[in-house]
């Protein structure tokens, strides 16, 4: 493998892994703190991508700025949506068995997919990145790399850093860490657990929606795009350990590397390698690399 090709693949792996982290970190927090297995998490990613597609033309007409205005509006909408969904739906799942949570959130996926089909249709759409990010940089003598993908990786790193700072340095972050270790104890210490749950859920939704919006120019926008991300995010959570942000980051990068280089080096086994990785980790550490608590 030529060095430039290797570099391009490394960048691809990094970008994919970091994007996965945005989805998986919300998923792992919702598992770890709310104790809810949320199958509809992939739908938020899908909703994000469709939001980017639907909002970008409208936003540029109304406010100018196009893509980034759309992202800003999308984040606000997703926080409100996540907050309302926790209040109106997810909060009824806390006392229920895992199986019931699985089925109710599975029902939610069907509802979201069909609403998407009714509102936007089933066609594949492209989303244009902002003009100043549309070009490519030269790598070596023949290879080029799209600037937008570099930008994505950069933004994801910033979000990951921000998430780390919030969780490690703030009061609410402390409550989140404590909640991931021992829910009942946090409750009995007087933390408003309902509010904490609502904030964590809304943040998880916002992260997934943001990931979807960010990915829209690269992956384009298509039906069922959330399901694939959901299952890979499950793999990430299993590898990283439930409730662990650090585990989610490491596992996302690992999955990104294995998937990207697997597709280049052994294309026949493209889709399978990630699951083989998961099986290997399960043999070694059934509770994942870092389990919170």
């Amino acid at each position, binding site marked *: 493998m030529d060095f430039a090709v290797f570099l391009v693949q490394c960048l691809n792996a990094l970008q994919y892994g970091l994007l996965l982290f945005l989805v998986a970190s919300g998923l792992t927090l919702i*598992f770890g703190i709310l*104790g809810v*297995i949320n199958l509809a998490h992939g739908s938020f990613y899908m909703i994000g991508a469709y939001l980017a597609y639907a909002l970008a033309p409208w936003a540029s007409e109304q406010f100018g700025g196009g893509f980034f205005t759309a992202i800003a509006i999308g984040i606000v909408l997703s926080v409100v949506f996540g907050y309302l969904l926790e209040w109106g739906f997810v909060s*009824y799942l*806390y*006392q*229920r*068995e*895992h*199986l*019931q949570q*699985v*089925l*109710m959130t*599975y*029902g*939610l*996926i*069907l*509802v979201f*997919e*069909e*609403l998407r*089909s*009714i509102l936007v249709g089933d066609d594949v759409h492209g989303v244009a990145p902002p003009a100043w990010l549309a070009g490519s940089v030269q790598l070596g003598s023949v290879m080029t790399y799209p600037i937008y993908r570099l930008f994505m990786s950069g933004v994801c790193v910033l979000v990951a850093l921000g998430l780390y700072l919030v969780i490690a340095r703030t009061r609410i972050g402390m409550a989140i860490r404590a909640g991931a270790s021992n829910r009942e104890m946090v409750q009995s210490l007087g933390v408003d657990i309902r509010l904490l749950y609502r904030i964590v859920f809304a943040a998880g939704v916002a992260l997934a929606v943001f990931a979807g919006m960010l990915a829209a120019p690269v992956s384009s926008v298509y039906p069922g795009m959330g*399901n694939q991300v959901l*299952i890979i995010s*499950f*793999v990430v*959570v*299993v590898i990283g350990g*439930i409730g662990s942000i650090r585990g989610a980051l490491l596992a996302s990068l690992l999955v990104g590397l294995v998937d990207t280089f697997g597709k280049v080096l052994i294309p*026949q*086994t*493209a*889709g*399978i390698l990630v*699951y*083989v990785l*998961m*099986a290997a980790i*399960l*043999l070694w550490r*059934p*509770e*994942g690399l870092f389990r919170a608590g």
Partner: protein
Amino acid sequence: MPDNATKESTAARTTPVLAAVVLLGIFPFVGGKFYVDLMVTTMILAIFALSLELLVGRTGLVSFGHAAFFGIAAYATALLSPQNEAASIAWLLPAAVVISALAALGIGALSLRTRGIYFIMVTLAFAQMAYFVFHDMKFAGGSDGRYLYVKPVLAIGPYTLLDLDRPLTFYYSTLAALVVVYALLAAVGRSRFGHALAGIKANEQRMRAAGFSTYPYKLAAFVLAGALAGVAGFLYAVKDGFVNPEILAWHQSGTVLLMLILGGIGSLRGAVLGAFLFVVLKELFQSEALFGGFARHWQLPLGLTIIACVALMPNGVTGLPAQLRRGRVPVPHAG
């Protein structure tokens, strides 16, 4: 007299089951071709749901990857059948069942190292891996799937005992398979093995303290469930004469769990009833006569129905009488 009470309850349990078998037996003579065909599909799904009931209802293991074993057996059936002549059921069915049981042995051995939420996610992930094996690998025909050109027969010398190409023969073979699987699982439930599984569901810690090594019991249940799902997969492949990766997609695993909860978890009757209810709901929502152009979006009412059913009757249709007697919606504690 305790003896009398047991007798009565046994009669009360078996009468509806026998009545259902008789009704299914005479159905081909009263139902139209379309409905007979639909009933075959329903019975195949019922076998599939029964196999998962052993895990979810009996042992308390929520597997979200059960479609893998259904699909692996279906693919095995299609891939092993010769192109131009009929295969013999005598080897094709055991081969498909053994292959799905072996897959269950491998996946179960790894998945059962985990529990709770992890187990749900891991079984889902392994099923997705099986999906990609058939989706990406050339031998299985990729996303286009594979055809099964000649349906298998059971013949001794020149005499053909069973020709699954004949619809009526296939109907009664499926009914027989359903009865056998039901009876087998009922027998398992009464056996020492079945009691051990029930003990694991109730309190695994205590079972271990009582000296049971629970892992082999859970693995045996997982393999048996995989093998029985294989029976359903075999019948499915023969019925349609076509397999594609979608039959092992995760929607299929979700659907079969849905059947269990519709019917009511914890009873064999619930699993069969759930499969029947699911087919009725699906046909209803897909009916253009009722919903017109909206029938295209049948998954919307289905999704809402799932949410409503789980919220309002968590014990399914078979649990409904008891629930109504108590007069409130029970909220079971997280397990």
